[in-house]
């Protein structure tokens, strides 16, 4: 009897291939396939109803989809830049501390330990117009006698969401940049000092270029996170009111799970992935460039 003999390299790779197929490849292929069907969760047989590019055409010509896309890019741009600035500031300050730095580093990571759902509920309460902390504080201090509709006003609602995002993720930048600060060789800094550079000049022309690779890595990681922002927004505003805070994934989540239109939701999801891919490629290019400038390889 002839037994099928697989080459050893394949046998060794097989467990990894099987696991990766099961958890990554099959769901991806299935969701890609279903984006070309009229698949509804409530009518399982509709997964065989091939509709070609109908879902993609519908999404690409839908104003609501593009509005959500634009809002997601806005959130990404503002949140990422502010998180980077605050994270940089935080890291620089913590690096100067001589006593209790460990404790500070641990405290810095607290916001990252909360589940996003919890952060959402926390800020939903803080920004509540009637019983929220912010309004109560402002009214008690006599700054306003109005109930400021933080989660309703178009600009304020986006601000509140960005605030919550920044609160929860600034420490990601903080920790990564702090790691960068520890890795900076002392010689160039000392050389700069000897050459008479001011503190700002040493930071701008020595420290910052060394930190850039770390900043870009943090940016790449966080851009993927923010492009998928869902939980915090879902809890705080659910994309509303009147779609004022609708982001890609609140729209896609509602379409897929509440409206049960999984085919259409998957099509929107695949278009949205390009956003994440674009930002990742952009930041990796910047990363390579900054490493080149530091002479850290091509």
């Amino acid at each position: 009897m002839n037994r099928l003999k697989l080459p050893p390299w394949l046998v060794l790779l097989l467990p990894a291939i099987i696991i990766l197929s099961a958890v990554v490849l099959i769901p991806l292929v299935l969701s890609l396939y279903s984006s070309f069907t009229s698949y509804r969760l409530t009518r399982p047989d509709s997964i065989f109803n091939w509709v070609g590019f109908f879902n993609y055409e519908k999404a690409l010509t839908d104003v609501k989809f593009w509005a959500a896309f634009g809002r997601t890019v806005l959130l990404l741009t503002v949140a990422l830049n502010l998180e980077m600035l605050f994270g940089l500031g935080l890291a620089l300050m913590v690096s100067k501390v001589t006593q209790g730095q460990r404790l500070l580093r641990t405290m810095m990571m607290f916001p990252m330990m909360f589940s996003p759902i919890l952060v959402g509920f926390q800020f939903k309460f803080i920004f509540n117009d009637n019983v929220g902390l912010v309004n109560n504080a402002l009214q008690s201090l006599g700054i306003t006698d109005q109930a400021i509709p933080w989660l309703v006003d178009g600009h304020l609602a986006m601000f509140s969401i960005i605030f919550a995002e920044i609160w929860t993720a600034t420490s990601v930048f903080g920790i990564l940049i702090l790691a960068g600060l520890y890795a900076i060789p002392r010689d160039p800094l000392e050389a700069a000092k000897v050459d008479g550079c001011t503190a700002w000049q040493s930071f701008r022309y020595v420290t910052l270029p060394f930190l850039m690779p770390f900043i870009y890595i943090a940016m790449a990681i966080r851009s993927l996170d923010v492009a998928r922002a869902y939980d915090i927004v879902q809890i705080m505003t659910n994309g509303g009111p009147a779609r004022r805070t609708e982001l890609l994934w609140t729209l896609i989540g509602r379409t897929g799970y509440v409206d049960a239109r999984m085919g259409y939701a998957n099509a929107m999801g695949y278009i949205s992935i390009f956003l994440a891919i674009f930002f990742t490629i952009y930041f990796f290019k910047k990363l390579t460039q900054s490493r080149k400038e530091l002479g850290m390889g091509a």
Partner: protein
Amino acid sequence: MKTLLSGASRAVLATAALTAAISSFGTAQAGEFDGVTIEAKLIGGQQYEALYARIPEWEAATGAKVNIISKKNHFELDKEFKSDIAAGTTSWCVGSNHSSFASQYPTLYTDLTDLVSKDVVAEFVQANIKAATFDGNLVMLPRAQFDVSALYYQKDLYDDADKAKAFEAKFGYPLAVPETWAQVKDQATFFADPPNFYGTQYAGKDEAIVGRYYEMVVAEGGKLFNDDFSPAFNSEEGKRALQWFVDLYNAKAVPAGTTNYLWDDLGNGFASGTIGLNLDWPGWAGFFNDPSSSKVAGNVGVAPAPKGSAGVRTGWSGFHGFSVTKDCDNKEAAASLVEFLTNEDSQKLESSAGPLPSRTAVWEYVSEQAKDDPYRSEVLAAFKETAATAFAVPPTPLWIEATNLIYPELQAAILGDKTVDEALEDASDAVDSLMQEEGVY
């Protein structure tokens, strides 16, 4: 031994008990369903369990056995029913149902008209029976878990002579608990003193605001959908209904965040004492009048839901019920169980804990029981009056999806992003596209 009954006495007592039990089961006969096992999928939860404790009585009377094969909340049951439909595993017999979900299962449940006598059906509140009937098929018998909203208000707002005088001078009619939504608007605007006190509030998102808008359209004499489920709300009545929400928001008579509020926010808001008038569900009655949970305890009045300009009360309602599957092997036994779980004794048992019944006689019974408790009597009277003209959600499986298209447009009008005309035009177009895409017409 005095405490021991003789065999003969025990037999007599057992027979008497059985006869009494059987007489309350309607059509069921002793041993009628010997050897039959009824599989049931029922809604679970502490407030629903007391009723299930009665099932052994039905088993003893009919000789059948009940096997509860699933016990979950309605959202979970809904998913399970849908996968059962997809997989064809629908040979179980009795299922919990809900008026807001029922339209989605036309292939699952059988018509009870031939299985339950007309006399029994006539004993239920007819508005509920109407809402349990789809395409002429009675798909469930309602249990004593009925929901409709009545108007809670702070009583002392109507005791202040100065306020009453100022109100009459401004609006030209005496200040009294409102009977129309136009009066609610006047009074809410009059009572409002933002940010400390608001005249009223409303659910502002998701299905909740569409439900509230829906009942207002009906109260204005309009319809949300035509008979073919094409949108009908972009009408004069629909515009008047939406204008009511917009006017209150513009007058700052409702909290600025109301478009983000759902039921818990509303209930807690009224209990915090910062809201004058509050259209809300019966489940809050106890909470509002309990000093440990509510600042307005002892100052709560309850009136029937006000009427719109067409003289119709708002009355968006929902209720639980029990259905029998089409694939059940013994539909008579299943229907007998459903009848038992919704009969007078069952409804008395369930409504004794607070929920509203769906049988006319039980309404009278609970009112009688509450006559020494003025607050409970007031609550029951208000809800009974509102329930008489209540109506369920439009019977389309696309209800939830349609509400997801309508509510952002309602919010856009309320917040001033769009005019009422633009918002309703856009919502109507979106629902029309959905219905056409789904092949409804």
